[in-house]
C-alpha cells in the first residue's frame, strides 16, 4: 500500500479495532429486545438469506484457494510451486474463517438445523474437516524443509486436500438440499464435482492476477475448461433430478431457478470473455457471480423448508426473539468491519507475487 493513502487507512483501522472491542450486550437492555423483531424487520428471512450469503462468500473466497491447490498439481518445478503457494499465503486463512462464521451463524440462528444436519452427516462432516486439515497444514509445512521428499509429500497433501474439500462440501450441500440421509448418492457426487470445477475456475482467474509470464499463461488456460466442466455438471445434476425426482420438478422449473441457470450461462460467457481480454478481476467477479448463483439456487429450491428430512421450515427453526435481535445487531455492526479487514488485506497484497515472495513471507 502506498504511504500517503495508508495513513488515512491506518487511522480508520485503529477506530475499527477499538469499536470491535466493545461488547454489544453491555449497551443493551433486554426489555425492548423481546418485544418482537427489531424495527419490524423480516429477520427470519434476512437470516436465511444472510446464511446463504456467508456460505457463498466462503465458497467463492476459499474456492479460489482450493482452485490454486488443484492447479498446483499441474506445476512441476520448485519455483512454479513456490509462486502458487505465495499467491494464496496471506489470504487463505481469512477466507476459511467464512466457514467458521457459517457454522456459528447457523448455530446461532437455526440451532436445531445446525444440530440435526451436522449429526446426520456425521462421517461426511469429519471428512470435510480432514480435507481442511490437510489443505491448511500443507503450505505451512511445505516451506519448513527444503528437501524433495518432504516437499513432494506436502505438495500431494495440498492437492488432495484442495480437491476433496470442495468435493465433500458439494456432497454436503446436495445432501442438505435433497434431504438425503445416505452418505453419498449420484446427484450429490455430481454437485461435489461441480464445486471442484467451480473452484478451479476461480483459481485460474486468481492466478491470472497473481502471476506473470509462463506460469500465468500455463495456469489460466485451465479456467475456461473448468468453467465448461462446471456448467456441464450443473446441467447434468439438474437433468438427473428432473428425471428421477418428480417431486422437485415444479421447484426446479420455477422462473427463479430457470433465471438463475440462465444467469449462470451468461456469467460463464462473461468469464471466458474476461479471461481472453486478460481482465482477471472481471473473471474473478464472474466466478463470484457464478458461486452466489449456485448458492441462491440451493436456497431458492429449499425455501421455505430449511431441512427437508424433518420438514422443518425456516419459521419453525429460527431462534426466539431476544437472541435473534441480538444476533442481528451483532452482525450489522461486525460484518461491515469484516469487509474493511478484507479490503485492507487484499489491497496490501494487490498485484502479482513478487520475485522472492516466499510462502513464509521472509
Amino acid at each position, binding site marked *: 500500500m502506498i504511504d500517503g493513502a495508508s495513513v488515512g487507512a491506518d487511522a480508520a483501522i485503529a477506530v475499527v479495532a477499538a469499536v470491535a472491542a466493545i461488547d454489544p450486550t453491555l449497551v443493551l437492555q433486554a426489555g425492548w429486545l423481546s418485544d418482537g423483531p427489531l424495527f419490524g424487520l423480516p429477520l427470519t428471512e434476512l437470516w436465511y438469506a444472510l446464511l446463504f450469503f456467508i456460505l457463498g462468500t466462503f465458497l467463492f473466497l476459499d474456492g479460489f484457494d482450493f482452485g490454486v491447490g488443484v492447479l498446483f498439481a499441474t506445476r512441476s518445478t520448485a519455483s512454479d510451486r513456490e509462486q502458487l503457494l505465495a499467491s494464496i499465503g496471506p489470504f487463505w486463512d481469512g477466507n476459511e474463517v467464512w466457514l467458521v462464521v457459517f457454522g456459528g451463524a447457523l448455530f446461532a440462528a437455526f440451532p436445531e438445523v445446525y444440530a440435526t444436519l*451436522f449429526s446426520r452427516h456425521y462421517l461426511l462432516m469429519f471428512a470435510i474437516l480432514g480435507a481442511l486439515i490437510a489443505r491448511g497444514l500443507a503450505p505451512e509445512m511445505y516451506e519448513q524443509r527444503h528437501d524433495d521428499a518432504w516437499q513432494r509429500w506436502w505438495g500431494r497433501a495440498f492437492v488432495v486436500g484442495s480437491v476433496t474439500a470442495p468435493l465433500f462440501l458439494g456432497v454436503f450441500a446436495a445432501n442438505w438440499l435433497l434431504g438425503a440421509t445416505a452418505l453419498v448418492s449420484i446427484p450429490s457426487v455430481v454437485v461435489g464435482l461441480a464445486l471442484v470445477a467451480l473452484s478451479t475456475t476461480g483459481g485460474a482467474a486468481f492466478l491470472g492476477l497473481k502471476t506473470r509470464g509462463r506460469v500465468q499463461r500455463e495456469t489460466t488456460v485451465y479456467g475456461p475448461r473448468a468453467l465448461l466442466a462446471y456448467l456441464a455438471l450443473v446441467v447434468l445434476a439438474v437433468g438427473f433430478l428432473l428425471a428421477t425426482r418428480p417431486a422437485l420438478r415444479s421447484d426446479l422449473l420455477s422462473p427463479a431457478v430457470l433465471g438463475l441457470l440462465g444467469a449462470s450461462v451468461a456469467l460463464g460467457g462473461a468469464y471466458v470473455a474476461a479471461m481472453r481480454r486478460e481482465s482477471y478481476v472481471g473473471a474473478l467477479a464472474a466466478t463470484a457471480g457464478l458461486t452466489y448463483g449456485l448458492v441462491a439456487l440451493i436456497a431458492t429450491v429449499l425455501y421455505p423448508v430449511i431441512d427437508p428430512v424433518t420438514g422443518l421450515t425456516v419459521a419453525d427453526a429460527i431462534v426466539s426473539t431476544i437472541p435473534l435481535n441480538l444476533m442481528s445487531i451483532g452482525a450489522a455492526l461486525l460484518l461491515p468491519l469484516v469487509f474493511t479487514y478484507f479490503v485492507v488485506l487484499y489491497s496490501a497484497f494487490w498485484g502479482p507475487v513478487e520475485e522472492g515472495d516466499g510462502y513464509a513471507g521472509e
Partner: protein
Amino acid sequence: MIEPALASRLQFALTTIVHIIFPVMSMGLAPFLIYFTWKDIRTGKPVYEQLRRFWTKIFAVSFVVGTVTGIVLEFEFGTNFAAFSTAAGELFGGPLAVEGMMAFMLEATFLGVFVFGRERVSDALYMVSAVAVGLGTWLSAVWILIANSWMQTPRGYELVVEDGQTLISLVDPIAAYANPRFPWMFVHMQNAAVLSVALFMAGVAAYHLFRHYHWEYPVEHPEFWETTLKIAVVVLLLTAPFQVVHGDAYARHVAETQPQKFAAMEAVWETDSYVPEYIFAVPTDLDDLLNPRAKEIFGLGVPGGASWLVSGGDPTAEITGLNEFDTQPPPVAIVFWSFRIMVALGFWFVLLAFWAGYRWWRGQLLEDDLLHKSLMASSLLGILAVEVGWIVTEVGRQPWVIQGVMKTRDGVSPGLTGFEATLTLVGFGVVYLGLLSLYTYVVARIVRAGPPAVDESTADSAPNGASQQPSTPSGGNDD
C-alpha cells in the same frame, strides 16, 4: 464399539486438549509480539527485529494448527452433542457466531499482513496489524470463555417445553453472558497463557545459553538469547505469583458456585469441618487404585487446609461432601489429582521466577547451571498446568454438561451410532498424534535454527541510527 456417549466425550476431550495448546501459544505470544514490533519500529535495533521475526515464525505455525483443530471443535457441538446444541443453541450459538465475526476475522486477515507484509506496508499499518492479531486472539478467548463459563454458572435463561422438547431460552442476555464465572475464568486463563509462553521462552533461551556457556558449543547470537531470557524472567515474576494468588481466590468462588466440583477437587465424601488439604493420598484398598470413584483414601494433609481454602482463612469451616448430592459424583481421582498437579506447578513456577530473579539481581543469571536445567525442564510445564486446570474444570463439572440444568448423557446426538463415534475417535487419535508430533518437530527445528540473521547496516533506518548490537553477553537488555 465404544458406546456413542462415552466415545463422544472422549473425542471431545481429546480434541480440546490438543486444541488448547495452540491458543495458549498464540494468546501468550500476542503481547510479546506487540512489544517486539513496537520496539523494532521505534528503536530499529536488530535484536528486536530478530525477536519479532523469530517468535512470529512460532506464532504462525501455532496459528495454523490452532485453526485446523479449532474448526473441528466448532463442528463437534453439532455432530456429537446435537441434543445439547438444540436445547442450548439460543444461548450458546450466539457467542460462537460473534467470536467468528469479531475475533477470528480480525486475527486471520491481519495475520496475513503481519506475517507476509513487513516489506509491503507502512510501519503504522504494520503496527496496527500486530495489535489487531493480538487483540483477535484475546477476543476469541472472551467469547469462547463466555460460552464455557455460562455452562459452569448458568443464568439468564428459562426452560420452555416446545413439542415435548425442553429448550433453554435466553431471557436476560446480560445476566447470561456476564455470568459470575466469566471474569474469573478469563483472568486465570489469559494469565496462564502468558505465563506458559514466558516459561517456554525461558526454557528455549536457557537451552541455547547452556549450550553456549556450559558446553562451549558456539551458539550464534548469545546476546539474543540473553535478552529473551531476561524478558521472560520479568514476565514470570509478574505472572507466576499472580496466578497462585488468583487461583486461591478462584477456588473459593468455585466452592460457592459448584460445591460438588469443589468436593471432588478435595475428595471430600462426607460433609465435615476442619477438612485437611491432602498433599498426597492413596486409596486404602489396593483394588481401588485404578478406580476413579475410590472412596477411602489415606493421605498426608495439612490439617484444616481445605477448610481454610474454602472459607478464606477459617480452618474449621464446613465442606459439603459428595454423598450429600443427589447426582453421581464426577470421577473424583481425576479431578483430585489434576487439581493437585496444577497447584504444585503453580508454586514451582513462583519458586522458579524468584530463583531466576535473585540470580539476575546478583548478576549471576548466566552462571547457575541448575537454574538453566530447571528452566529447560519446565519449558512445557505451563501448558501441562493449563491442561490439568481444564480437566479440573470440565471433568469436575460432570455429570452435568450445563451445571444443574442438563446432564452430559442427555446432550449426546440421538442418532449417533457406536460405530461412527468409535471410527472418528480412533481417526482423531491417529491424526492428532501425527499433528502433535509434526508441530513439535517443526517448532523444535525453528528453535534449534535460532534467530534469523538480520542485516545490521539496513536495520537502522530508525531515529538517530541507534543500533549497535552489544557483543558482550551481559549487555542484551539495555533499556
